[in-house]
């Protein structure tokens, strides 16, 4: 009896075929690019591609004093061959992210290399630029010699390797990413809390109304959800500006005398993000509350609980699943927000996605962009795991 039953329950091969198009689509457009992007955070190919033998030689260098003359000879030879190639330009960019100014130094050196082999290659290079005589220059080259590096990930956490290879903090004025990550988490937390405070009563109201009233109201919740984030954020910029409608209204009501600064700061980011993300809170709450119904509250009151106590002891615990789902949705969506803080916030309100976009588009430092993405992904994953643990924890053993 068992065998035939399980044969019908098992998804058949033809069923898998139906899933195949979507699987291929998402693999090609989503999974592969993300994996490639994240892989960039540990790859370091430029130098080893432009100067393969130099990279190999530097890997053997003990890091003390200067590399042996033979390695530097190899470098000079490879640099000469690389003149005018694209690979040299990439390598120069890469080295510039280690030490600023390295790019121009390398390109100038490539142009003015001596024609013949030199007895003292270091001195020959140092004649072109004195920095070739410094150990830190070569240490930077060794760090960039790849093919893999932890440099981007360290940089994304405001850490770097010093010339001795030890992990140290970067200089105070360059340390931004930890601050940005904490700021991202903080803004997301605030947005989640405000969404919960605003969304819970709305969901409760909707869930306790008869369908013919609740459904049109639910559409009102959904309309912003169906509107582009860009449009909604721009609308907030218009509403919240110095002589915008909100300030105008508050002034006319006599609540304020001077217009408030509501946009291009944290307030603007929070207002716009809460508005944009609110449906993500209301919808899961509503669906969970719809399942609770009116009966438990009525029962609790008939058993002697005042409405507030009935809510706290009976309704709220039953809606925890909705709170968890809503908060998770809002928080995780908020973590990756880019457009809204960019448009409604000031310089101090940019979240981590802004920097990912910055390094992807403007400086094409894809390694750092990938490292920041990876850190965002890991933080998100950890939060999800924590949520899954917590929400499973207090339940009865199944």
């Amino acid at each position, binding site marked *: 009896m068992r065998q035939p039953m399980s044969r019908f329950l098992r998804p058949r091969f033809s069923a898998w075929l139906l899933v195949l198009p979507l699987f291929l689509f998402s693999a090609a457009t989503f999974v592969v690019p993300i994996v490639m992007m994240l892989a960039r955070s540990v790859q370091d190919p430029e130098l080893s591609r432009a100067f393969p033998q130099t990279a190999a030689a530097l890997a053997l260098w003990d890091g003390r004093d200067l590399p042996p003359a033979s390695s530097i000879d190899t470098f000079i030879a490879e640099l000469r061959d690389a003149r005018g190639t694209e690979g040299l330009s990439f390598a120069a960019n890469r080295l510039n992210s280690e030490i600023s100014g390295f790019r121009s130094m390398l390109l100038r050196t490539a142009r003015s290399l001596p024609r013949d082999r030199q007895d003292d290659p270091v001195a020959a290079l140092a004649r072109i630029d004195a920095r070739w005589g410094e150990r830190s220059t070569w240490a930077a080259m060794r760090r960039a010699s790849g093919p893999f590096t932890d440099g981007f990930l360290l940089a994304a956490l405001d850490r770097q390797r010093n010339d001795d290879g030890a992990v140290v903090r970067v200089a105070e004025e360059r340390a931004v990413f930890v601050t940005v990550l904490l700021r991202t988490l903080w803004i997301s937390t605030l947005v989640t809390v405000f969404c919960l405070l605003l969304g819970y009563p709305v969901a409760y109201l909707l869930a306790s109304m008869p369908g013919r009233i609740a459904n049109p109201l639910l559409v009102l919740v959904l309309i912003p959800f169906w509107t582009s984030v860009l449009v909604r954020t721009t609308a907030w910029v218009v509403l919240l500006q110095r002589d915008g409608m909100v300030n105008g209204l508050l002034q006319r009501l006599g609540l304020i005398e001077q217009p408030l600064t509501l946009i291009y700061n944290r307030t603007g980011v929070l207002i716009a993000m809460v508005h944009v993300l609110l449906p993500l809170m209301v919808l899961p709450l509503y669906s969970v509350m719809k399942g609770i*119904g009116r*009966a*438990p509250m*009525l*029962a*609790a*009151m*008939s*058993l*002697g*609980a*005042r*409405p507030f*106590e*009935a809510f706290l*002891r*009976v309704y709220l*615990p*039953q809606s*925890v699943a909705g709170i968890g789902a809503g908060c998770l949705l809002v928080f995780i969506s908020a973590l990756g927000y880019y457009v809204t803080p960019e448009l409604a916030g000031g310089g101090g309100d940019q979240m981590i996605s802004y920097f990912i976009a910055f390094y992807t588009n403007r400086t094409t430092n894809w390694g750092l962009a990938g490292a920041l993405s990876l850190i965002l992904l890991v933080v998100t994953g950890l939060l999800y795991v924590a949520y899954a643990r917590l929400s499973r924890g207090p339940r*009865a053993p199944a």
Partner: protein
Amino acid sequence: MTERFVAFDGVTKTFAGGVHAVRDLNLDIARGEFVTFLGPSGSGKTTSLMMLAGFETPTAGSILLDGRSLDRLPPYHRGIGMVFQSYALFPHMTVAENIAFPLTVRRRPRAEIEDAVRQALDLVQLTAMGGRRPAQLSGGQQQRVALARALVFKPPLVLMDEPLGALDRQLREHMQIEIKHIHARLGVTLVYVTHDQGEALTMSDRIAIFRDGSLQQVGLPGEVYERPLTSFVAQFVGESNQFAGTLRDVTGLVELDGGWRMPATIVHPLAIGARTTVSVRPERIRLSRDDGAAGAVQELIYHGDHLRVVVRTDHGHAVFAKLLAGAVPAWVRDGAAIRVSWDAADARALDALPNHTTEEKLQ
């Protein structure tokens, strides 16, 4: 009723849009009584119960509990136990926590709560289930938890809103008897809402029958069954043959449509020539070979303990009779010629039902 423990005084409930859910309800319930509100859905029985519980407010009239007006008393101050149709157990609490709930909101001492919960679990025979969650119990067990929770704080009045609706027939019949026993043991006053007339007849001290927001009849189960006051009650409680006809003389002779003249008991004052509905219980129909209106057996339906016989009379009426198994004469056969009659005392001339043409128009 000498004692008015619960009293509905001219209670009317009108919902938005002018729908009369309950019209001028006057009903007294004595202490310790088991009263069932019986009626089809939309008859106002549940609305009446909800007003008593405090979840609906009467539009007019007032409700008294033990001499006190409930008008301004919120549900949580009424001290009335209630069992809901859906049980409304709290899924995040154990069975024991559910049952303890009314005591914990009353801030009773822990020892007292533990005692009371144990007693309540014993009462509903769930002694070992206190640590489980409601979801781990069967429907019947959940029902018992809801019952225990409504009884544990010893309310003088317990309301039940179709509490057995979700159970299968056997379990439902078992629970009917169990609730009846618990009522007898605890002596609480119980108001029970159902649309199941069998349940009402089995359990209640008295039955109040609702229709379209109005109270049709209140009485002992036997009274309601044997002496219905309206054709609706006759039809809703038990089964009955109902024939439209016209009253021909003051002794109760009714000429049924189609020309069949039969005797009946006049229940309400009726003028000669007035339209009426004659209601006869199927077990009171007399079948014979030589006495009554002529007809033929149209259908025989076997029910184990009894046999249902449908007779088509020559006047065109379909009359259905119940015969106890073992008391079926051999001449009651499919298609056999047969005669139908009844005693005047078993036929009740009640209010006129709308005739068929108007009924069709209404639809």
